[in-house]
């Protein structure tokens, strides 16, 4: 059905075109809501619709006032700092712990593999509200609720499954004779790890790290329960904004976040292709 054969009947022709129209409508449904915020964030008026001035491309209808608002606001700036601080710290922890665990899991000698894998993936499966409620009580009882430590540990737990999964996936095609060869040639285990294993699993580690980062960066339920006012992140600030007063400042934030996600998406895609090429899984 990629192209229409010359002998297609009228019915087939109609279906051929209808099907494409339907598909593009669905792609439109996926993309349009996200992209529409970008022009709206340059609205000179505090409205969520295109004003007449905007549609006629009158420069007075467009402005940067919501971006000025954003960068001039202490609470937004603080939330941006917090999001990066928490996200980066949680990513480093999750990546380290997750990569080590994936290396261990990939060894055939590992006992109770299924059970352990289940536990390591569980933060991804358990509904967030339940994780958040549990952590709220536990973190309160050990005095790390409403601290950066608490939020970072919680986000580490949520990010770990992604690292474990992506690194395990790169290890599936991993040729273990390479490390043995290195060992036979006299390399220390550490040297073997950094010279042989690491470069091969690096794409998996990096994309796992990106997943862990975006998980933390985007997380809100745990933050609602565990974080205090000083740990407010961007999503927490947006949550208040949506529930209380939707000003187009939120659209400015949202537009910037869309650009961030485009950057992350591109990185992950490039890594995936590189990794597949290196492992010879696909022609790229």
């Amino acid at each position, binding site marked *: 059905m990629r192209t229409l054969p010359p002998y297609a009947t009228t019915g087939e022709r109609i279906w051929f075109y209808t099907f494409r129209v339907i598909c593009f409508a669905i792609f439109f449904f996926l993309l349009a809501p996200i992209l529409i915020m970008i022009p709206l964030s340059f609205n000179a008026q505090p409205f969520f619709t295109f004003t007449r001035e905007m549609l006629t491309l009158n420069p007075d209808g467009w402005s940067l006032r919501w971006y000025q608002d954003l960068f001039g606001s202490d609470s937004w700036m603080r939330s941006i700092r917090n999001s990066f601080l928490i996200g980066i710290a949680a990513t480093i922890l999750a990546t380290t712990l997750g990569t080590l665990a994936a290396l261990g899991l990939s060894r055939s000698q590992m006992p109770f593999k299924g059970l352990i894998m289940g536990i390591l993936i569980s933060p991804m499966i358990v509904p967030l509200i339940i994780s958040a409620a549990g952590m709220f009580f536990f973190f*309160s009882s*050990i005095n790390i*609720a409403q601290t950066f430590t608490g939020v970072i540990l919680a986000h580490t737990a949520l990010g770990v499954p992604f690292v474990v999964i992506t690194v395990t996936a790169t290890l599936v095609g991993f040729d273990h004779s390479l490390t043995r060869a290195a060992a036979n040639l006299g390399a220390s285990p550490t040297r073997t790890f950094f010279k042989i294993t690491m470069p091969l699993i690096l794409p998996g580690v990096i994309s796992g790290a990106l997943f862990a980062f975006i998980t933390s960066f985007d997380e809100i339920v745990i933050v609602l329960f565990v974080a*205090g006012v000083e740990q407010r992140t961007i999503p927490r600030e947006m949550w208040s904004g949506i*529930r*209380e007063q939707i000003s187009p400042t939120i659209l400015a934030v949202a537009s910037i976040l869309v650009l961030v996600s485009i950057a992350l998406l591109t990185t992950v895609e490039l890594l995936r292709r590189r990794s597949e090429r290196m492992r010879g899984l696909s022609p790229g």
Partner: protein
Amino acid sequence: MKQRSLKVIGAGSALSLLALGAAQAAEDPVRLTIVSWGGAYTASQVRAYHEPWMEMNPHVTIINDDGSANALASLRAQSQAGNVTWDLVDMLPSDAQLACDEGIILQIDHDAMLAAAPDGTPASEDFLPGSLGECFIPQIVYSTIISFNTEMFPEDAMPQSIADFFDTEGFPGRRAIQDRPAANLEWALYADGVAIEDIYDVLATPEGVDRAFAKLDTIKDELVFWTEGAQAPQLLADQEVAFATGYNGRIFDASEVEGQPFEIIWDGQIVEWDGWVVPADGPNVDAVMEYLYFATDTQRLADQAKFISYGPARASSAPLVSTHADLGIDMIPHMPTNPDNYFSPIVLDNDFWTDYGDELRERFANWMLQ
């Protein structure tokens, strides 16, 4: 030579350390976390209380947390954990009484801890009758009212009363109410013809509760529910709804400061106190008490009314209420306690809600979902 210079340096740094220590003893930096309701209300407290206090005490930094909506839950969790991070919390008197019974907030000796009126009247007599609680220091009297967007009604047929709010034929349009029973059930009975002084007696009977819900059923198709105070004016401004119940101060802020076309129906306004409680074992109890002595004195309570239209809880503050700080308009006509507005108030009965609250909240939640 070398040794000597070392000694000199040593003595010098010891001295400067001493000096530093002395300065710190005088003004150890203090960070107070003060919890309130957010939005225009927190803004009024910042300008009337926090900013002057921080100016007088440069070592104090006040951090605002708008967690009052879930304050009792957080206080309980903090207290159970033995890790109290809040210094001062703005709360409703009903929640304050619960927290007080549980021992998680401090008992207040009002005359010893709070400033007397300028004429020497002790605090316990200066605060309005019935407003003080065992653990509760009132700041304001506020009211829950119904307001509407004037652009959504013809000029000659604006709604006037609670009865109009329940009349969906005469006054069409969606209505936003809070997602809890308090105020809504009272209004339903009032609109159904129950006299104001009988409302809580009727509501204490199963038939009365049924009657209130039956009245709410008549407008249910038009209802939208809001959770947080700031949502009501937002829904009205977006014309998502024609009417919204809300706190009079927030509606004032939206209509007078932001210029939204809102009007308040003062008929059946539901009057309640709001004020401070001090968490037990808070991190800076002494510093908070100093702050409270200042922030609840006669002048400060009157000052808050320059920023938001809530009535001060001290009798001695009333004559000092003047004009809005930014707009210069007279604030008295906007106060819930102004006689022009106070013609048919329903005073919220906290004892009633303590006794029947859980059951009615459950039924209300269920009714919303049906």
